[in-house]
């Protein structure tokens, strides 16, 4: 039984037809074709599916799509600047070499963005706390921390 949902996605009001059993991640990737958000574990352990809902980082794989109604959702596709250039976090990840295979990167950037939006001068501990739910199996996190620090400093 399909239901109609209205919510804000990357700043634009959209209406989507959904099956109540879907997760938000399924709607984003399989229906809306926003494949920047990744599916890693599907159990809320890895953070690859992180999106920002009403200002907070959330695992979209555990988020029932029906709860999206009326909320404001931001995905990695929606964080670029108005002139088409990349978000400072994206630039910093590239400049600092914080991307290797790249699978964790969208989630990592969304977690970092939720942090910086709320706290533009985070300490290293606060950065680690913000990305504790994001697993990276390539980099060892040091360059990711450097990238977030440099994006925070560059503001």
């Amino acid at each position, binding site marked *: *039984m399909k*239901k109609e949902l209205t919510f804000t996605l990357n700043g634009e009001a959209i209406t989507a037809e959904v*099956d*109540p*059993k879907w*997760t938000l991640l399924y709607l984003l990737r399989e229906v809306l074709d926003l494949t920047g958000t990744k599916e890693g574990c*599907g*159990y*809320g*352990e890895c*953070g690859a599916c*992180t999106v920002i809902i009403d200002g*907070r*980082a*959330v*695992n979209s*794989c*555990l*988020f*029932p799509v*029906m*709860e999206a*109604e009326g909320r404001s959702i931001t995905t990695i596709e929606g964080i670029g600047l108005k002139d088409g250039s990349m978000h400072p976090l994206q630039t910093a990840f590239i400049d600092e070499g914080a991307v290797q295979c790249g699978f964790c990167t969208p989630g990592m950037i969304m*977690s970092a963005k*939720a942090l910086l939006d709320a706290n533009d001068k985070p300490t290293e501990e606060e950065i680690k*706390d*913000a*990305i*504790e*739910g*994001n697993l990276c199996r390539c980099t060892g996190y040091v360059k990711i921390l450097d990238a977030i620090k440099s994006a925070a400093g560059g503001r």
Partner: protein
Amino acid sequence: MTGYEYYKPKTIEEAIKLMGSLEGARYIAGGTDVMVLLRQKKIAPRCMISLRNIADLTRIDIKDGLRVGSAVTHSAIEENEHIKKRYSALNDATTHLGSRQIRNVATIGGNICNAAPSADTACPLLVLDARAIIAGPKGAREVDLDDFFLGPGSTALEKDEIVKEFVMPPFDENTGSAYIKHTRRQAMDLPILGVAARITISVKDESEVRCRDMFCTIDSISNILSRLKEEGLKCEDARIAMGVVAPRPIRAKKAEAALKGKIVSPELFEEIGNIAAGEAQPRDSIRGEAWYRSEMIRVLTKRALIKAIDRVIRPDEAIYPERLW
């Protein structure tokens, strides 16, 4: 995955009514456990009744004690300054649960109602004398949290009932509390062991504890305790609760009784640790072996108590950096 209908009631009454009228229905709050069970195909509900949009369940009220709605997220608890100060054990538990993403949606009611022996908020609520206010088809009732847990995954909740909120009494500035979660890694881990403590202290003939600066040093707990003993620091009241040491989170009531009314000392704390360990029945599991858990109860009970004392003696951690207990 088989499909289900998704209901979003706006009031508790509406939710209970839905639960009573729908076949194969299940409550869902933050969904961080339910959605995983669904994906693992361990449950197959025909209907989901969301508790996320019920305003009465998402409030924190700090008048005359503390009332925390069951659908309050761990992040909301973590960010509440009053809870951090007066109900510190609860803050300790919520800051180290899951990840930022999980805490942003997972609720305290979900953590308690899943009744895992390892539930992080359970021990703090036990030491903070929390009662669960339950709403159901037959009306409201109150259950002491100590009577709420029956076993792993099993609670005093009856069919269709919902925990509305958790209510805790007020505590004065002579009372401090702490929760220590013993894990292999800091993030995204379940505890090998969890110990919470609450203690109310008084100092003989003095308004201030003179040795408070010792808490800023790396001095051993036994040295600090010896000094506190010299100053006649007395335990007026205490609560100790332990997680992952029994089929449900439990109070160490014998240890509490042995502590009440005594002047603190290294010997007393040693004894309290031993009594608490004797009250636990830990078993071997993937996270740790029984003997190790027993040993660690001795250590962590002492540590949780001294951390709680620290919070009474140095309430303003902005002046003194927090000691890494």
